[in-house]
C-alpha cells in the first residue's frame, strides 16, 4: 500500500518524511522501536491523489480476490480501507467477510433493469411487473421503484447513502456504486461521488481533511514502521498553509496534549473557576442580589451597589437593625468558621493559579491574532528599506524573523496549557525555566523587529531569531524527554513483557 501511495503524491515543502521511514513493510518484528516519538511523516493529498489512492486500493483488492471493483469498494469500506487486512481476512474466512461487509459472492451478480420471465409483484409499488433490478441477493424491485429508492438515499440521507442497503426488509447487502450509478440521475450521481470521497477520508484511519475553510486537501499519515496505531497529537501542515493537529483537528497545540487542550478549552469556556470563587467568597446582598465580597472588618455590611445601601449581617444575612449592635451573639458564626475559611482559601488560590496561566495564554493568543497585521507590517518595513536604498532581497531576513516570532508565540501560548496540568515537580521547574528563556528571547525578537526601520540591526535580529529557535527546540526536547521517561517508567511499573513493542499505547 505504501508503494501505491508514494507514486501519486505531489511534492510539498511541508513534507518532512525521510526515505528511511517510507519503507513501511520492511521491518523486523523483533526490532525494538525507540520510545521517542519522531515527528510523524505525513503527506498532503489533493482530490485527484485521493481518487487515485482509492482506485489503487480497489484495484488491488479486486485483482487479488477476483471480484468486481464495486464489491471490492464495499469490502474495503467495512475494513477501514486496509487492503491487506481485507485480503488476509478474506482468505481466512471468505463467507464471514462477505456477510459482515454485506457483499454477495461473485456468482451472484447485480442485475440492472432486466425483464423477468413471469410477472411478479414489486414489493415497493405493489404492482404486477416484469422489469426489475436487483443486487446479488436477488431481491427484486421494479426499476422505477429501485431508482426512487436510490435517489431517496442520496437526496435525503446525506453521507449515510454510501452505507445504504438492499431495499428489502432486513437484507444486509450493501448497494454497490455500480448499481447506484446506473440508477441515479446525473445530479444524484455527482453528489454520490462526493459522498464516496468524503466517506473514504472519514473512514480511513490515517486520513483527515484539512480543517481550513474551503480547502479540499487531506493529510495522509505514513504508516508507522512498528504498525502501532496512531495515538496522540501530531502536528501536520497542509499545502494550503493550515497547520493543525492530526489527532484532534484543532490548531497545532504542542507541547500540550489533545486531552489537555480539550480540558483547557472547556475550562476557559465555562469560566468555572470564577464561578467557584464567587460562590465561595461572595454573598448576594439580600436586597439587591449584587455579589458582595467581605474584604475584612466587621460583619456589618452596607451594600454599596448604586442606590441599594441595604445594611445586613454577613453571618446570617438578616437585616442589621435586628442585631442591635451586638453581632457577636449571631449564633451561626462559630459553626462554619474553620471549614469556611479553608474552602475560601482553596478556592481563591485555585482561581489565582488559573488566572496566572490563563492571562499568559491569552496574551500570546491575542498577539497571534494580529499575525496577519504583523506580516503586513513587515512587508511595509521591507518596502521602506528598499526606499532607503537596500534591495528587496536584503530585507527578506525580516520576513523569516517574523515567521520565527509567530512560531514561538504559537508554542508559548500552549506551553501555559501544558504547564497548568503539570504536577509541581522537577520537570515542571525545568520546563518553566525553558519556557521563561523562550519567552525572554521571543520578546527581544519582537521588540527588535518592531523598531523603526533605520534602527533595526540585522545581526541583532538574526541573533535573537536563532536564540528563539534554539530555545523553542530545547523546550520541545525537554517535553519529549519527559514523555519518554514517563512512558518508560509506566512500562517498568507494569512489568509487561514485550510491551515495549507497543510504546504508543502505554504513553
Amino acid at each position, binding site marked *: 500500500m505504501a508503494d501505491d501511495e508514494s507514486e501519486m503524491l505531489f511534492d510539498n515543502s511541508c513534507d518532512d518524511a525521510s526515505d528511511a521511514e517510507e519503507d513501511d513493510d520492511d521491518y523486523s518484528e523483533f526490532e525494538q522501536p525507540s520510545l521517542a516519538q519522531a515527528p510523524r511523516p505525513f503527506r498532503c493529498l489533493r482530490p485527484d491523489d485521493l481518487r487515485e489512492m482509492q482506485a489503487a486500493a480497489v484495484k488491488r483488492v479486486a485483482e487479488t480476490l477476483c471480484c468486481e471493483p464495486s464489491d471490492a469498494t464495499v469490502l474495503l469500506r467495512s475494513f477501514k480501507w486496509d487492503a491487506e487486512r481485507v485480503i488476509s481476512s478474506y482468505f481466512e474466512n471468505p463467507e464471514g467477510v462477505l456477510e459482515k461487509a454485506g457483499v454477495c459472492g461473485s456468482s451472484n451478480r447485480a442485475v440492472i433493469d432486466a425483464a423477468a420471465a413471469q410477472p411478479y409483484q414489486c414489493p*415497493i409499488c*405493489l404492482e404486477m411487473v416484469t422489469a426489475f433490478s436487483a443486487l446479488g441477493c436477488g431481491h427484486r*424491485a421494479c426499476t422505477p421503484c429501485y431508482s*426512487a429508492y436510490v435517489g431517496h438515499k442520496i437526496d*435525503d440521507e446525506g453521507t449515510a447513502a454510501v452505507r445504504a442497503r438492499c431495499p*428489502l*426488509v432486513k*437484507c444486509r447487502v450493501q448497494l454497490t456504486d455500480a448499481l447506484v450509478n446506473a440508477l441515479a440521475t446525473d445530479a444524484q450521481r455527482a453528489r454520490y461521488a462526493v459522498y464516496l470521497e468524503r466517506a473514504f477520508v472519514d473512514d480511513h484511519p490515517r486520513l483527515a481533511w484539512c480543517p481550513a475553510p474551503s480547502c479540499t486537501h487531506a493529510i495522509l499519515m505514513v504508516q508507522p514502521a512498528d504498525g502501532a496505531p496512531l495515538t496522540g497529537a501530531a502536528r501536520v501542515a497542509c499545502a494550503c498553509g493550515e497547520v493543525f493537529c492530526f489527532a484532534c483537528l484543532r490548531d497545532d497545540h504542542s507541547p500540550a496534549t489533545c486531552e489537555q487542550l480539550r480540558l483547557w478549552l472547556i475550562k476557559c469556556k465555562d469560566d468555572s473557576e470564577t464561578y467557584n470563587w464567587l460562590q465561595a467568597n461572595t454573598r448576594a446582598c439580600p436586597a439587591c442580589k449584587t455579589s458582595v465580597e467581605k474584604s475584612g472588618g466587621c460583619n456589618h455590611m452596607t451594600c454599596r451597589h448604586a442606590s441599594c445601601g441595604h445594611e445586613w449581617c454577613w453571618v446570617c444575612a438578616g437585616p442589621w437593625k435586628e442585631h442591635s449592635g451586638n453581632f457577636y451573639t449571631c449564633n451561626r458564626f462559630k459553626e462554619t468558621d474553620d471549614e469556611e475559611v479553608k474552602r475560601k482559601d482553596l478556592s481563591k488560590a485555585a482561581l489565582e493559579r488559573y488566572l496566572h496561566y490563563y492571562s499568559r495564554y491569552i496574551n500570546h493568543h491575542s498577539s497571534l491574532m494580529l499575525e496577519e497585521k504583523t506580516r503586513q507590517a513587515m512587508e511595509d518595513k521591507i518596502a521602506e528599506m528598499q526606499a532607503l536604498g537596500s534591495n528587496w532581497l536584503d530585507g527578506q531576513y525580516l520576513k523569516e524573523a517574523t515567521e520565527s516570532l509567530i512560531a514561538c508565540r504559537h508554542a508559548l501560548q500552549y506551553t501555559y496549557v501544558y504547564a497548568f496540568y503539570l504536577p509541581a515537580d522537577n520537570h515542571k521547574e525545568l520546563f518553566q525555566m525553558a519556557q521563561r528563556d523562550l519567552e525572554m528571547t521571543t520578546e527581544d525578537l519582537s521588540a527588535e523587529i518592531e523598531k523603526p526601520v533605520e534602527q533595526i540591526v540585522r545581526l541583532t535580529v538574526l541573533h535573537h531569531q536563532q536564540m528563539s529557535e534554539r530555545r523553542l527546540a530545547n523546550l520541545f526536547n525537554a517535553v519529549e524527554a519527559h514523555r519518554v521517561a514517563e512512558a518508560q517508567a509506566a512500562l517498568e511499573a507494569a512489568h509487561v513483557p514485550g510491551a515495549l513493542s507497543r510504546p504508543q499505547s502505554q504513553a
Partner: protein
Amino acid sequence: MGELPRRIQKETQRLLSEPVAGISASPYQDNLRYFNVVLAGPATSPFEGGIFRLELFLPEEYPMAPPKVRFLTKIYHPNIDKLGRICLDILKDKWSPALQVRTVLLSIQALLSAPNPEDPLDAGVADHWKSNEAAAIEEAKRWTQQYATGSLP
C-alpha cells in the same frame, strides 16, 4: 398534496378488506394519508384487554420514508414515552420500503408483547422495568385498565 399514490390506495383497500386480527386502521375522509388506528393489547402481556388508539401518518416520501406513528392512549411501556412516541428500529434507520402499514402495526403489537428496557425511550419506566419487573408489569396493567378502555370498531 397531489393524487394519492396507487401503493397507498392498494394498502388502504387491503387493510379494510382483510383486516388483521386485533388491529383496525382506517384513513380519515379528509386526509387519506392520516389513519385512525385501534390496537388490541396482545394476550399474555400486561396490556391484555386494553384497547389502544394510535395515529399514523404517511409522509410525502412514503414508502421511501417510514410512516409516523404515535400512541394517543396513555401506556406504561419502556419503549414508548409520555407523548406516545415509539422507539422501534423499523420506524427509523431500519425502515425498508418493502414494509407496509400492516407490518408496522404488527411490529408495534409485538413490541407490546416484548418490551425492551435495554433500549429505552422513557428512562424512568425502563429503570422500573429493570429493577423490579413484577412491579412494573403491575403498573402497566393498572394503566391499561385505567386508560386503555374502549372497544375495537
